[in-house]
């Protein structure tokens, strides 16, 4: 098996595109056949479709490659699929609105919340699904765990209203974007690769100043993601330092002094303040 097949060549693909032709290789089908054995497939398809797919792929060989792969430090896979995915994504295709009942953090249920669904988001860290939606009553961008949704029904919306909601969503997302600059502490430049890998899951740009041999990572994130960014920064410890974002800097300082307090170390600085 070769991932660099001639048939995957970019010129071939572009010609096939123009002609509206498909080239499905057995390695793609083999991959699918293997993945259909994952328990998630029963939530992904109706029983009829699943049986049909299995029949269509009967002659393919399984790729047994997962036998040689050991996955480490993977978060517990709470869910890969959620039964509501199919329902919600169909509403999204029709640009429909939603009426939701969902459980909230501190107990209780919010009912009859109307809104417009934007995207279904999977957290690779928590390994579960969220619905990002616009709450039309409170004019707020929401992120709700699918696990917490008690019920959902579709509400039809006129198309001009849909366009307006889409524009509003884009504005809201923009307005919630924050920036932080993180500097690689120079002593740790030899570990640059590891540091950049750790930040490679964020939207970021890297700059390098040759005269001081300093790397700086400019991260763009949504406000409520600062907790995760901070955990990454703590993960890397002394290797990186936040240089821009007063909020994150303050949080890191708090983190350090509170951590030291756990170990019974008093810190004169804070006391003086």
């Amino acid at each position: 098996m070769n991932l660099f097949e001639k048939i995957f060549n970019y010129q071939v693909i572009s010609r096939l595109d123009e002609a509206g032709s498909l080239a499905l290789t057995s390695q793609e089908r083999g991959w699918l056949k293997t993945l259909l054995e994952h328990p998630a497939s029963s939530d992904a398809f109706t029983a009829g479709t699943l049986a049909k797919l299995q029949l269509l792929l009967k002659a393919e060989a399984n790729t047994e490659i997962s036998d040689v792969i050991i996955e480490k430090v993977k978060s517990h896979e709470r869910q890969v699929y959620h039964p509501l995915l199919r329902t919600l994504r169909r509403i999204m295709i029709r640009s429909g609105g939603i009426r939701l009942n969902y459980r909230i953090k501190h107990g209780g249920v919010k009912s009859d919340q109307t809104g417009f669904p934007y995207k279904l988001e999977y957290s690779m860290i928590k390994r579960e699904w969220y619905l990002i939606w616009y709450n039309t009553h409170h004019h707020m961008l929401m992120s709700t765990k699918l696990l917490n949704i008690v019920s959902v029904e579709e509400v039809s919306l006129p198309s001009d209203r849909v366009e307006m909601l889409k524009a509003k969503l884009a504005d809201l997302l923009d307005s919630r974007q924050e920036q932080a600059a993180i500097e690689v502490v120079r002593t740790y430049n030899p570990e640059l690769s590891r540091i950049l890998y750790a930040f490679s899951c964020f939207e970021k740009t890297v700059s390098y100043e040759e005269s001081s041999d300093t790397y700086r990572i400019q991260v763009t994130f949504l406000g409520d993601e600062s907790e995760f960014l901070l955990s990454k920064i703590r993960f890397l410890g002394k290797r990186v330092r936040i240089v821009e974002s007063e909020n994150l800097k303050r949080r890191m300082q708090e983190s350090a002094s509170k951590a030291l307090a756990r170990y019974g170390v008093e810190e004169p600085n804070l006391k003086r303040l």
Partner: protein
Amino acid sequence: MARESFDKEIQFLRMLALAGGAYSRQQFAERLGISVHTFDKTLRYLKEIMSTVYQRLPRDQGKELSEGLRYNYYESADPLLLFLFRAKSLKESESIRLSLILTTLQLQSLTAMEVMDACSGSMPDDFSLPDEKTIRGDLKYLEEIGVIVRSESGRPYRYKAANDLVTQLSDEELIDLFDFVDIMANTQVPSVQGYLLRDNLKKALRQRSMDATVTEPFLYKYHYHSRILDEAHLYTIFQAIRQRRKLRFLYLSPKRTKSYSSKNTNPLFERETEGVAEMLLPLRVVYDHQYGRWYLIGHNSRQGIMKFRMEGLTQIEEGDTVPEEEFSHKLANLEEQLRHSWVTDTGRSVRVVARFYNPDRSGANFVKERVLSQGQWGTITEETDSTFLYEITVNGIFEIKPWLRSFGSSCEVIEPASLRREFIAEWKEIQTYYEPLREDL
């Protein structure tokens, strides 16, 4: 003929993806150990592929490629780095022929001679007409990779595109299949074939007039995009493991010192001449979810168990096979040693005990949730209303340390005492990073 190597392109794209924008042409070329001329040539080639594959990308994407690959989280659902796997070089005449043959066979089954006639009719004027031998060779290739099927009925054989997986499905079923492939390719490893299939299904949906609202409903938060570059080596290694075959390669690792940190220094930024020729019996591949990185683990007669970052592997070649007995003995030994590895450390095992503090606020206990979810085989014991103890036996403390530290003040290391001291020292130093300047007071 030796297989075309994509080492240079992989290194190139990895550097773009990780350090995007940081370097000038000169600096970039220097760090890859190539000339500026080669840098320009490689960039031109990659840009050409990218603009061909992603015709619908905004115009400034070409510019972006030279400045680094930047993902706009809410706007790009396509895995940008996938175009690496489109880089196989091909003569133009061959690319025209293969696509003509496949197009001819989309809706009808034809014999080799009929295919040849159809191709000859559609071949652009400036290319010579294919002969029967060439067409038969092409059909054989397409059949081998499963893109076309040969019908059961006797000679002359008839061929047809193997598109049943798509054509047999209703619109609704095709959407479900697209979703499944999209989700599995993004959340599971390995994923390259899934992404290739996703491209095909996306095309099929477009043919049925279903647009972007259909193909881009999902987002995956905190994804390690560059992980798919390392999959380029995965199948070579898989094959070798299956055949109990040794691999030879040039490993772009820097210093050979024994310290943990230098083992992890980036081979990417080192010149090729500093690479080390290695010979290894591959046993397993490890995927580290903390960084989205791959490791090759194997056995070498001189040094025993060895671990290599996949990104440092270049010029991989197959070597001799070993007897089954030898392979299984070494594999069993490795599995035993990896049992307590947080990632790949096979050093002496240590008992680590940490106290975790539940959040003050009421509501979800996200500290405990995270420990339960990520703490691997460690165990939890309730201590007080506000704390619990986490205990784990793990090979060495280096790999687990960043994870414990990421909890900040919610985690207090109890044992080993040396690790506790290290944490105190580190937090003190981190605190100095954020101290207000004394002059200000």
